[in-house]
């Protein structure tokens, strides 16, 4: 029997553990990654020449990060590893790749998408001002480049990352002006039973909060974001918000780190024709997969945050599990104990992530509350008012239709940072549930494609 050609896209925790598991079963996968180095986002490796140790870089996750990097270093020469390579398109059985301006194709029998996630954003008036960053971006600035995104930073949004990055900034000596969480304490208390599924993580969260209080950082819960203030010349100059009790306050700052947990990178799954399913807990569309990571398309699998947002630990387990599913589908022997172990771990993590979604919900109501003048699409500078007009005056009650009329989602980011919030604005204007307005169709290229691209001459 000819060995299946297996290609994994993404060298983060899911991709690495998947490759490791396949290798142990005698399969040599191709591992394609957009970045120059392995690790994905959360375990992003610092550039050569940087000296900070794992504890400084990854804090409580240091051991996991080191283990992952060491695992990758061990398997690197045993697999076909292609870094600095973007999969920009695909047709059934064939990936279109570009690396250093050269296009090439990679044939596959089985494709495992471990494409990860980006921050999930809800617009706020003024968020197009220079000095506004995503929470993940603020973290990368620190972890990967040892810089703070500003002299005085406000962290705003919701989710565990909010507290993690803020406290990492404090530890590194940056000035944190305030931590503003849209989620009230009451929701956290309600979610406690589910959060107790992973007591270690819950404890870490509490510790982070304590660190912030000790550093005398102003932490506000249950806030409503009102405006990122500033001007064209300076960019961000402050943040205006209303507290849980309705008092309007202003914090001076030259940088804002904004984010509401994560959204999956599903463009390749979309292009492969995979069915999407609406996840009610997090109110967003995910690739429809079975428990092991099989998508609706035979031979296409997905694992990690690119499939279900469950965090880095879950990604490692999902990476192993999807490899085992592939082995099973290839009629190869499967380590049942290993599979059970992953499934059990993921069961716990599923509970926890439901708790997170409850404790730190996606603030869909903010979309309705956005003033008409607030920008929804940063790339194209389209306001909430313009988007609402396409619903009300042109009857566009579906995301792709509204995109065609308003240009929301037509910019360089291809809807990554505007489309979900845009869907909420459309749904609110049309008076329907957000899942009824659909989602932005994924199109090629997956990222902007240079027009210098030339075809690789095959040797």
């Amino acid at each position, binding site marked *: 029997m000819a060995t299946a050609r297996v290609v994994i896209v993404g060298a983060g925790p899911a991709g690495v553990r998947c490759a490791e598991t396949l290798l142990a079963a005698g399969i040599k996968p191709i591992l394609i990654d957009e970045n120059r180095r392995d690790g994905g986002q959360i375990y992003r490796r610092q550039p050569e020449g940087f000296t900070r140790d794992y504890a400084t870089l990854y804090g409580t996750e240091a051991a996991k990060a080191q283990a992952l990097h060491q695992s990758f270093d061990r398997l690197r020469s045993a697999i076909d590893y292609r870094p600095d390579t973007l999969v920009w*398109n695909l*047709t059934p059985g064939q990936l279109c790749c570009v690396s250093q301006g050269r*296009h090439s194709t990679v044939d596959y029998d089985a494709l495992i998408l471990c494409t990860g996630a980006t921050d999930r954003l809800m617009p706020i008036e003024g968020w197009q001002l220079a000095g506004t960053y995503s929470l993940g971006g603020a973290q990368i600035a620190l972890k990967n480049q040892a810089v703070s995104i500003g002299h005085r930073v406000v962290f705003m949004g919701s989710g565990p990352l909010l507290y993690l990055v803020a406290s990492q900034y404090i530890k590194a000596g940056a000035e944190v002006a305030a931590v503003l969480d849209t989620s009230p304490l009451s929701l956290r208390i309600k979610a406690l039973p589910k959060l107790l599924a992973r007591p270690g993580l819950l404890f870490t969260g509490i510790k982070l909060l304590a660190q912030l209080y000790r550093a005398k950082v102003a932490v506000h819960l249950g806030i409503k974001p009102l405006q990122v203030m500033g001007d064209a010349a300076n960019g961000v100059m402050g943040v205006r918000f209303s507290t849980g009790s309705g008092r309007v306050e202003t914090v001076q700052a030259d940088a804002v780190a904004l984010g509401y947990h994560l959204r999956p990178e599903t463009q390749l799954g979309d292009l492969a024709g995979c069915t999407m399913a609406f996840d009610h807990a997090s109110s967003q569309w995910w690739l429809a997969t079975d428990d092991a990571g099989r998508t609706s398309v035979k031979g296409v699998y997905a694992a990690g945050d690119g499939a279900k947002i469950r965090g880095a630990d879950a990604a490692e387990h999902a990476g192993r599990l999807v490899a085992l599913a592939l082995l099973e589908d290839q009629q190869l022997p499967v380590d049942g104990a290993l599979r059970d172990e992953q499934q059990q771990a993921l069961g716990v993590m599923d509970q926890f992530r439901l708790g997170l979604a409850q404790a730190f919900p996606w603030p869909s109501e903010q979309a309705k509350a956005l003033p008409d003048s607030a920008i929804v699409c940063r790339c194209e500078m389209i306001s909430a008012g313009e988007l609402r007009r396409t619903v009300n005056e042109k009857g566009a009650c*579906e995301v792709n239709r509204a995109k065609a*009329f308003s240009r929301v989602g037509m910019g360089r980011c291809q809807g990554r940072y505007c489309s979900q919030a845009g869907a909420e604005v459309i749904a609110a204007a049309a008076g329907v549930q957000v899942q009824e307005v659909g989602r932005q169709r994924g*199109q*090629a*290229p997956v990222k*902007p494609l240079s*027009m210098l691209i030339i075809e690789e001459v095959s040797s």
Partner: protein
Amino acid sequence: MSVQKADVVIVGGGLMGSATAFFLRKRGQSVILLERDQIGQYASGVNFGNVRRQGRFLGQLALANRSWALWKRLPELIDDDLEFIPSGHMRVCYREDEIAELEAYAAAPEAEQLDLKIYRGAELHRRFGFLGPDVKGGSYAPHDGHANPRLAAPAFARAARRLGAQIEERTEVAEVQKVGADFHITTTDGRQFQAAQLLITAGAWGQKLSAQFGEPVPLDTHGPQMAVTEPVPYALPTVIGVYTKIPEEVIYFRQIPRGNIVIGGGYRSKPDMLNRRAYVEPRSILNQVSQMRRLLPGVGNLNIIRVWSGIEGYLPDSLPVMGPSGTVDGLFYAFGFCGHGFQLGPGVGDVMAELLATGATSTPIAPFSITRFAPPAEQRSQAS
């Protein structure tokens, strides 16, 4: 359920159907338009956006001229300019001997209104300094231009609705029958419609209905290959298209004031007619960027940020089906515009409305008659 009646039922809510609905209302005709998905979702909404007369089959220029007069008046007619810019259109060629062909076209009496001017060599490169050195000559149409196809059919449909047309989206025709003097239409949701006149503007699906009435046509479907760049400073006001016999070289581009450069051409893809989706083939994108680097040096600095395709209907002689049925009274067609229908849209609507309302049109459309596909015996009997 009660039957909804009108003077005209239109099946197909693309640009042709929407424009006809609008002009029918201007003539006082009642009209119901039935669209299976959303107005302008297919060929009308995904094409390149060329508002171009030059290069057309000479026998089509009368229709194109009539349409052009309407393009100029769009804000007054439908309260929307569709982002139309009369930017001028340049048809360029890479080979010296092709210039003579461009000259021959420019000299044709039908092309007189276009005010075409031929450029070559140094003069061309002085005026159009952004074009690559391989460009040898070109034909410049000063009044041609471009517009935003995504806006067109929906704008006409809204204007028609404001005038009292009944526009039904997400309404699929299940059955059409001629009963006596009227057409009886049933939709999949059980509604019934009736009219003395039926217009088929169902684009790539037009032939399904024409075949039912005994007039099959060899309609083929293709997916246009479109790409767009990120926005860059606006500096290219002219729409550029390549005149060539080599298919991969047939590239065209236009820059919009916001700065994006829209690119089309080269290859075509085969649409998935079952799911009504079409895709851009990777080889199309690679070909387009390569051709663009030749046509517009320096464009290599830019990034493609999106590609799209759609479903267009083509006839083998590259001419549409337009005009009355050859077999059934009260039945009319306007479909299969072979990827060049956008500029014709307003004109087609105006002409079809005239034809439906008065029984004749002043604009010659005989070359587009569906009867040209009838078997020879039938054609003879139709001619007599």
